[in-house]
């Protein structure tokens, strides 16, 4: 459906007024006189006088009339513009007006082309011939009808007087010029996406309609909103931070390849280049998503994690990404492999996630799909971000990379005096991908040995995760490390204090801080897009201050809700909230806290219980 041009039609009818309309003339074609021709200038003057608009506007409006096919030119049929001179135009018959609900039909077009074929003895324009052939294939089953109807219409036309026949031909031609534009002409009726509902329909206001409206507005009210001052502030801070690394605004070193034909920039910034540029390495310190988005950053981070014996976290994260964005056909086997490698009890590279997440994941793996590991992936992402990232930035590995990083020299622009330089293209993505695969394979081969020694140490917590029995008594506190406190909402914070948990030092290895996951749970609870389980963890906090795993049995009633909603999990969306520039988080959290239950998302239900804790 498209909007209807009712006003134009009314104007068209006014133009016909014998007193106040446009004066018509007769067009002489050879020996025949065909009445009702108007000059472009007359049309323009009439519009000016009737609508009291400026010359420019009137010309534009008149031009639109011609373009949409309400008026068609007689002397230059293909030139659908209004010429404010003596060139002749005629009004189109109402049947051929561009009306909503009556789009030009393929069958009709086929009939028209067949008729034209008969009249011109097979001489059609090139594009018409193409259309003809295409339609013959497309609506082949109707073709017999098309031929029959074309012949009949042609014969019926002969019953009219010669002048009328001529006028009819002109009309039809004009109509199809507008509705099946020849190549090179502007297609005015290109109006974009068709709307499913008719905007001009008069909907009867029934109970159902009102009920829907109310529901819609209620949901809109409950949408979490951010103050524009806050979001704008965040935007400004982001822009300031990233200004220097923006290649368009701040220029790029050594030079912009598109200008100087020098591909060094791409070479220096290749995905897994040996020595990255300083700018790039500095960006890794902005926030965690910058680090994890950059393949070289991930590589460096992986080195660091290996030293801390938590390399499998990043590997698991990468495996999940591969699952999410890989082949649909391989989803099942990939999911199983990941489970065997990372999640199963006694797995070779077992990752440390809490029992409830593990429960969800295991359950989801019965019917694997792309996002089945989202809960676990988010958990690990948060783990890395809250825990390892901070230490990474202070580690010698990062500092070394920063020191090693190069600052390319700006290339001197060579004057192209003696002919153009040979234009080189950027490295082929196929080759790049191959290199990546090789690098990955190499990495996979080398990482096997390192994690082995860790296994015995990880065995202890393993049974606890799955059996959900007495949680191991861990000396670590639930207190969140201070860097995160900025983002935590005050309500959560106050909840924690009364429990009298001392803010202990951060655990040395993220593996041994499953407790930290509780705090993450608190933190995550704020957003609609988090696992309900993690949110549910917090109510148990006071009960088991240092237990990382809640007995799975207690979570039974929550399980049914925690079905596959993981498609809303978006790791990237964490970043804007958590970046230190954006204090949005706390406000949002408060919002969600208060209105948890009303929102439609099924996984927010546990939040109320969380508050009670």
């Amino acid at each position, binding site marked *: 459906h498209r909007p209807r041009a009712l006003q134009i039609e009314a104007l068209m*009818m006014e133009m016909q007024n014998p007193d106040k309309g446009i004066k018509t003339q007769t067009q002489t074609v050879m020996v025949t006189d065909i009445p009702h021709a108007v000059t472009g200038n007359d049309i323009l003057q009439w519009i000016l006088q009737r609508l009291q608009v400026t010359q420019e506007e009137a010309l534009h409006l008149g031009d639109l009339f011609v373009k949409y096919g309400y008026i068609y030119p007689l002397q230059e049929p293909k030139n659908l513009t209004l010429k404010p001179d003596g060139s002749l135009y005629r009004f189109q018959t109402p*049947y051929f007006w561009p009306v909503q609900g009556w789009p030009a039909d393929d069958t009709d077009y086929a009939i028209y082309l067949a008729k034209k074929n008969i009249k011109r003895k097979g001489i059609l324009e090139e594009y018409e011939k193409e259309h003809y052939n295409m339609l013959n294939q497309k609506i082949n089953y109707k073709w017999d009808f098309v031929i029959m109807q*074309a*012949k009949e219409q042609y014969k*019926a036309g002969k019953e009219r*007087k010669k002048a*009328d026949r001529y006028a009819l031909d002109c009309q039809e031609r004009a109509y199809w010029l507008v509705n099946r534009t020849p190549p090179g002409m502007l297609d005015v009726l290109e109006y974009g996406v068709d709307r499913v509902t008719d905007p001009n329909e008069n909907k009867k206001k029934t109970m159902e309609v009102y009920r829907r409206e109310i529901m819609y507005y209620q949901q809109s009210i409950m949408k979490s909103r951010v103050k524009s001052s806050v979001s704008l502030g965040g935007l400004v801070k982001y822009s300031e931070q990233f200004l220097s690394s923006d290649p368009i605004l701040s220029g790029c070193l050594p030079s912009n390849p598109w200008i100087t034909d020098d591909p060094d920039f791409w070479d220096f910034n290749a995905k897994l280049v040996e020595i990255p540029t300083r700018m790039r390495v500095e960006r890794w310190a902005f926030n965690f998503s910058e680090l994890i988005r950059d393949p070289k950053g991930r590589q460096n981070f992986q080195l660091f994690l290996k030293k801390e014996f938590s390399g499998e976290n990043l590997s698991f994260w990468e495996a999940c990404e591969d699952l999410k964005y890989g082949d649909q056909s391989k989803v099942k086997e990939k999911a199983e492999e990941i489970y065997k490698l990372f999640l199963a009890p006694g797995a070779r590279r077992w990752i440390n996630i809490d029992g409830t997440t593990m429960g969800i994941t295991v359950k989801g793996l019965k019917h694997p799909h792309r996002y089945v590991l989202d809960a676990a992936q988010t958990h690990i992402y948060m783990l890395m971000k809250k825990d390892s990232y901070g230490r990474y930035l202070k580690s010698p590995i990062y500092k070394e990379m920063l020191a090693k990083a190069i600052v390319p020299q700006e290339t001197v622009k060579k004057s192209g005096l003696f002919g153009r330089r040979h234009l080189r293209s950027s490295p082929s993505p196929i080759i790049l991908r191959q290199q990546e695969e090789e690098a990955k394979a190499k990495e996979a081969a080398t990482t096997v040995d390192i994690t082995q020694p860790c296994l015995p140490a990880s065995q202890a917590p393993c049974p606890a995760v799955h059996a959900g029995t007495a949680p191991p008594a861990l000396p670590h506190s639930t207190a969140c490390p201070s860097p995160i406190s900025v983002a935590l909402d005050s309500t959560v914070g106050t909840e924690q204090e009364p429990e009298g948990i001392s803010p202990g030092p951060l655990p040395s290895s993220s593996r041994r801080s499953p407790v930290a996951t509780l705090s993450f749970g608190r933190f995550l609870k704020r957003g609609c897009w988090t696992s309900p389980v993690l949110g549910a963890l917090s109510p148990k906090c006071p009960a088991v201050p240092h237990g990382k795993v809640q007995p799975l049995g207690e979570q039974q009633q929550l399980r049914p809700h925690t079905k596959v909603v993981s498609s809303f999990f978006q790791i990237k969306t964490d970043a804007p909230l958590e970046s230190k520039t954006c204090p949005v988080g706390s406000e949002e959290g408060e919002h969600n806290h208060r209105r948890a239950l009303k929102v439609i998302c099924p996984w927010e239900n546990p939040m109320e219980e969380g508050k009670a804790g």
Partner: protein
Amino acid sequence: MVKEECKALLDALNKVTACYRHMVLTIGGTSDSQNLREELKKTRQKAQELAVANRNKLTAVLKDKTVSKEDKAEFERLWVIFSTCLEILEIDMRRALELGHEFPLNVPKKHLIQTGMSGGTSGVAARAMSVQNMKYEAEHNIDVVDLKDLENEINQVGEMMYEMEMKVNVPQWTVEAKQDPGAELKSTISVGASSIGMISVEENKSFCDISKVLAGIIFSAVLIIAIVLAVCVVKLS
């Protein structure tokens, strides 16, 4: 026998549909008149009769199990033609209704669009009704009165089409056209009479012909001169 009957009925419906289209094109233009509205009414009623006849005949045949495979394929082809024809007819009827509402004839404020048409459509109507001359006996406000009937008839046709779709199971896409592309060119009658010749202003064919003729003349003239010279040379030597 049955096939010929079906074909004849279908041809008749086709003819009436084509004429109806011609007439609907004229609504709202300067050729519009009370007569036109009456013609429209009569034509579409005839079309409906033919449609019903076609439907009955074809459904009877298609339900008949004793028909051979080739015959069945042929009837299915006819069925597809019939349903497409009916679709076009229904669309035209709906447009006639809309245009009829927009252009009532007796309202002095509403002017007809000056489309360049001056003649009437009685010839077309006569062709549709298969009579020599049309007789006009309707009242002077048929343009308004008729619209109600038109609405009802549109509903009827709509229902008929729905029934047809439900009862007869002929997948349209399985039918292959008998006519090749360009078949319409083979049996055309006196094409030249229709065009005034001005329409072919776009065609440069005539000019090409002239230049070709000229070239031919010049070439033959040169050839003749060459031959004459050669003969002279031979004669003199």
